[in-house]
């Protein structure tokens, strides 16, 4: 029953009871009567107060105590629902709400557990990985540095490191903050730089980091790989190559010189058949010498010692010379070799004449070799200049370079997968690698355009000073 109905009935009943006493009392007198009336009213009020305490105040108090306990986090408490009035209903709905809270809390705890497990897995992964990992924000403050990274920068015990710790320790010409801020702001995907930290060499991979939700750049990750052992091994290999190459040159010299005398008739006449055999032997030996020279150059590039003196040179003179020298070879291969002479005189460029000649020789030789199919081969050599660059180009209509091989053409021992047919047992795969180093040492650039089955064009450009 509703509370106000209860009170209304109780009041009405009390009032009627008092009224009845008055009406029924014979010979009522005003003074005594009002005393009696007030006494009766007070008694009724007292009952009313007791009733209200029992039905309203006590349940509200109990409710309050439970609410306080639940508020303090004890979700096991429930309110006793004693009556069917508003307080009873309030208690019941409060209990329902508490149940819902318990459910929601349980879900939330499960989610938190899940997330923290995930977080734990990720951070122990980052922490335990052998590579140094550092994450910086847009202002280049270090947000995270894993165990390996902290050890690399000499603070294995610290929880984190500062950017200063990093940039202080990185030796060499690399400006780490400049490089990083470039990658952070440009949002470029990846860059590799080799640096020295302490006595060790590291390769740095830098990549920008995007916010997962908003996709804006929020910083960069630097991953550091210790390549010291690799470098040591590389150096040892280079030295071995260098020494053995030198040792190999001497027997090749003996074969070369003695064959030259035999073929030149210095020790008497030889038959046609003997000459044919010895000519091939001589050429085979020449190829070996060429290979040894390439290996020595490659070893020097590896050591960072490929340094040739540069001097101003008229490039078209070299090009003309090399083209002429290759004419016989082109004729032999039934390839038309054309040199498009520049109309006007060109400015000089600062290069090492012998080495660049070797590069052009190599490029023209390749062009002739790889276009010697069906007697339709054609190689065009030209040289042009604009305000800034002098550009040499060799264009052929040969077999081209398969797309899959193109990216690696300037790497050591890399050859086009379709090259062996026209050059069986030939090139070392070092020619373009050396060419690139020689051209770049003179401040130039080398590149190519090619389509398999249609031909290739190789370009070499030098800045005009």
């Amino acid at each position, binding site marked *: 029953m509703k509370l106000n109905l209860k009170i209304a009935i109780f009041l009405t009943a009390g009032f009627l009871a008092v009224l009845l006493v008055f009406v029924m009392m014979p010979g009522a007198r005003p003074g005594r009567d009002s005393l009696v009336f007030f006494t009766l009213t007070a008694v009724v009020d007292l009952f009313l107060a007791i009733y209200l305490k029992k039905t309203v105040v006590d349940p509200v108090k109990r409710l309050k105590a439970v609410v306080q306990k639940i508020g303090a986090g004890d979700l096991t408490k429930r309110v006793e629902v004693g009556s069917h009035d508003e307080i009873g209903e309030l208690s019941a709905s409060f209990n329902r709400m508490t149940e819902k809270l318990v459910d929601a809390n349980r879900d939330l705890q499960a989610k938190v557990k899940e997330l923290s497990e995930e977080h734990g897995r990720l951070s122990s992964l980052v922490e335990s990985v052998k590579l140094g990992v550092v994450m910086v924000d847009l202002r280049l403050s270090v947000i995270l540095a894993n165990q390996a990274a902290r050890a690399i920068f000499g603070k294995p015990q610290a929880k984190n490191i500062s950017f200063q710790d990093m940039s202080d320790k990185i030796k060499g010409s690399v400006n780490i903050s400049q490089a990083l801020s470039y990658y952070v702001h440009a949002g470029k995907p990846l860059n590799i730089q080799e640096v020295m930290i302490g006595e060790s060499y590291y390769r740095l991979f830098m990549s920008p980091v995007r916010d997962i939700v908003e996709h804006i750049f929020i910083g960069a990750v630097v991953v550091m790989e210790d390549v010291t052992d690799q470098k040591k091994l590389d150096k040892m290999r280079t030295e071995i190559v260098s020494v053995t*190459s030198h040792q190999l040159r001497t027997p090749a010299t*003996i074969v070369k*010189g*003695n064959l030259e*005398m035999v073929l030149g008739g210095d020790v008497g006449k030889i038959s046609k058949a003997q000459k044919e055999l010895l*000519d091939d032997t*001589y050429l085979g030996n020449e190829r070996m010498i060429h290979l040894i020279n390439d290996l*020595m150059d490659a070893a020097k590039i590896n050591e960072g*010692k490929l340094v040739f*003196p540069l001097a101003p040179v008229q490039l078209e003179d070299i090009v003309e010379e090399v083209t002429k020298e290759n004419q016989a070879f082109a004729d032999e291969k039934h390839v038309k070799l054309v040199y498009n002479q520049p109309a006007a005189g060109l400015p000089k460029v600062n290069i090492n004449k012998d080495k660049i000649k070797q590069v052009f020789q190599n490029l023209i030789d390749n062009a002739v070799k790889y276009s010697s199919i069906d007697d339709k081969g054609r190689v065009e050599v030209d040289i042009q200049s604009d305000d800034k660059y002098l550009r040499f180009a060799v264009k052929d209509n040969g077999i081209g370079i398969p797309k899959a091989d193109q990216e690696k053409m300037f790497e050591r021992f890399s050859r086009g997968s379709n090259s062996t047919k026209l050059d069986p047992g030939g090139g070392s795969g070092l020619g373009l690698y050396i060419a690139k180093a020689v051209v770049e040492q003179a401040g130039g650039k080398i590149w190519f355009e090619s389509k398999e089955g249609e031909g290739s064009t190789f370009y070499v450009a030098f800045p005009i000073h």
Partner: protein
Amino acid sequence: MSTPTPKEAPSVKGKVLLVEDDPMVVRMYERKFKLEGFKLTMAFNGFEGLEALKKERPDIILLDIMMPKMSGLEMLKIVKDDPQYKDLPVVMLTNLGDRAEDVQKCKELGAEDYWVKANMKLEVITEKIGLILKKYSGR
């Protein structure tokens, strides 16, 4: 490798001191130089080279670098420090790398040139020796 041409009896073009430790290489140059009309003296290391220099008084020295006892570079220094021999042309004839710094170093020490054996035909070597002797005899 042109067609073989019969060799005529050569006239003596000059005296060459070859300092080289590999006997097969020595034998090869000896034959060619004699065919081309040079008079040849041989030594197998720097010490022997210096002795031969005093005894034979050559017009030109061809000097290997990597040799036992005394290297070509050491001998070059001694020869070029001696006022008696400092104007004598010395050419490094070696199979050691053709690094710019090696070549530069030898030239700074007074070598006339730096030839890599494996990269030069015998006829080119003899031709160049002839040119150097001609250049020095005119002095």
